[in-house]
């Protein structure tokens, strides 16, 4: 069971959250991209083995969606990403 630090509610158990997957860069303007670049933005994920930043949704409580830095190999959660996101 992971303990997820929610910016609003503090540290709460994992089953109150849903992981929304890897956080990607902000949405580019489609008109400025060619098809390959747009397809890349939609589909491609770094899928890192190690530290990565992902989005979590505190659906069972405050409803906040925030970014969290987590290690995909050890599952260690480091909260440093959430401040930047807020």
């Amino acid at each position, binding site marked *: *069971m992971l303990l997820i630090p929610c910016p609003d509610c503090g540290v709460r158990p*994992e*089953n109150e959250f*849903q*992981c929304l*997957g*890897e956080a990607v860069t902000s949405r580019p303007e489609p008109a400025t991209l060619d*098809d*390959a670049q747009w*397809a*890349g933005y*939609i*589909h*491609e*994920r*770094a*899928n*890192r*083995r190690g530290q*990565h930043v*992902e989005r979590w949704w505190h659906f069972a409580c405050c409803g906040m969606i925030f970014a969290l830095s*987590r290690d*995909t*190999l*050890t*599952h260690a959660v480091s909260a440093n990403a959430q401040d930047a996101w807020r």
Partner: protein
Amino acid sequence: MGFGTLRLMQRYSFFTLARNALTRHQDWARAWRSPPLRPSYDVVIVGAGGHGLSTAYHLAKEHGVSNVAVIEKGWLGGGNTARNTHTIRSNYLRDVSIRFHDASVKLYEQMSAELNYNILFSQRSMIDLVQSWGKLRDLRRRSLAMALHGPTYQLISVDELRRRIPAMGDLQNVRLPPLAGVLHPEGAMARHDAVAWSYARAADARGVEIHQHTEVTGFLSDARGAVVGVETSRGVVRAGKVALATAGNTSHVIARAGLTLPLVTRNLQAFVSEPVKPIIDVIVNCPDVGLYVMQSDKGELVIGGGTDPYPSYRQGCHFATFEDVVASLIEVFPRFGALKMLRQWGGAIEFAYDASPIISATPRDGLFVSTGWYGGFKSIPIGGLTFAHLIATGRPHALAEAFTLGRFGGLRYLLEAGTVAQR
């Protein structure tokens, strides 16, 4: 090209078994060699799991390309080939997926004879237990789609379910009482290690070299940016073509070639009970509650469920998922509550954006990739055959034309519902 066709593989038979018994089994030939790593090959395959070894075997057998090295970071068949639930089936939804996996089942049926290696193939059929009307509609659609292509996926009544699976409880206290079953007679299992070992032995006999404990740390490029070899923990190896069959870690490996793929890696766990007398002789899948269970030849119940709910390379036990699966198991099979669990494992499976496999060339010339095997044990023979065709000819095999990376550029998804137990 290879000297391999000159090698004689020691055949396994009753006669060789009896003869080696006389010498206390001290004189068996090695199943494959461990030759020194050479500086160059026609093809380097990264990953000596089922898919990598099957690809090497089919390159040598179908295309005469035997100057091949299969390079493996760990040991042969020690990745996802050893971390699955050895189920073989073809009950998929999309036309291309059904044809592809049906061909794979047919290759599995012949594998023991073709490779002279008993893979303990047991075609015992698979039964889906349907517990919601939505799932019933979904599976009936798959049943009709499959009827167009050959493999059987047939609706059966609850009475027939009880007759075929007497180990189930009385189903009175089940939260979602079964509405029907769907029978897939082609459903089978096989010994996973034997699949890797049989392909390794047969590929080796055709001249392929297998190099274990050799990690690929980077890729060599020429002036045009084409991949012309790999850097490994044992030195540089040049290659005409490099093919990745690194299930679970493909994003990690291909990042060293500067590429990003539409993949996510997750943990899929399974566990086995203590061995018991034969009690269940089919593979049971309960897609509504996320559970599948079968009995291995050793008598252990092999139990699995859905994937963990977030990206993971940990290959461990996500306890909430484990608890979910066990709760579902006890509900449908109350008597299994008395069993102790013996071991648990997790496999790092990777799935593509549309949950269909990727067998494709990449934006870098000379680099090919076979990935997205969201439950790839069943696809080992056909995955290797079609990947070998792509590597040798540069064109996708007729069965795998839809599985290239190009489909994402045109948003031509192959959204697949037939992968690992969906909830």
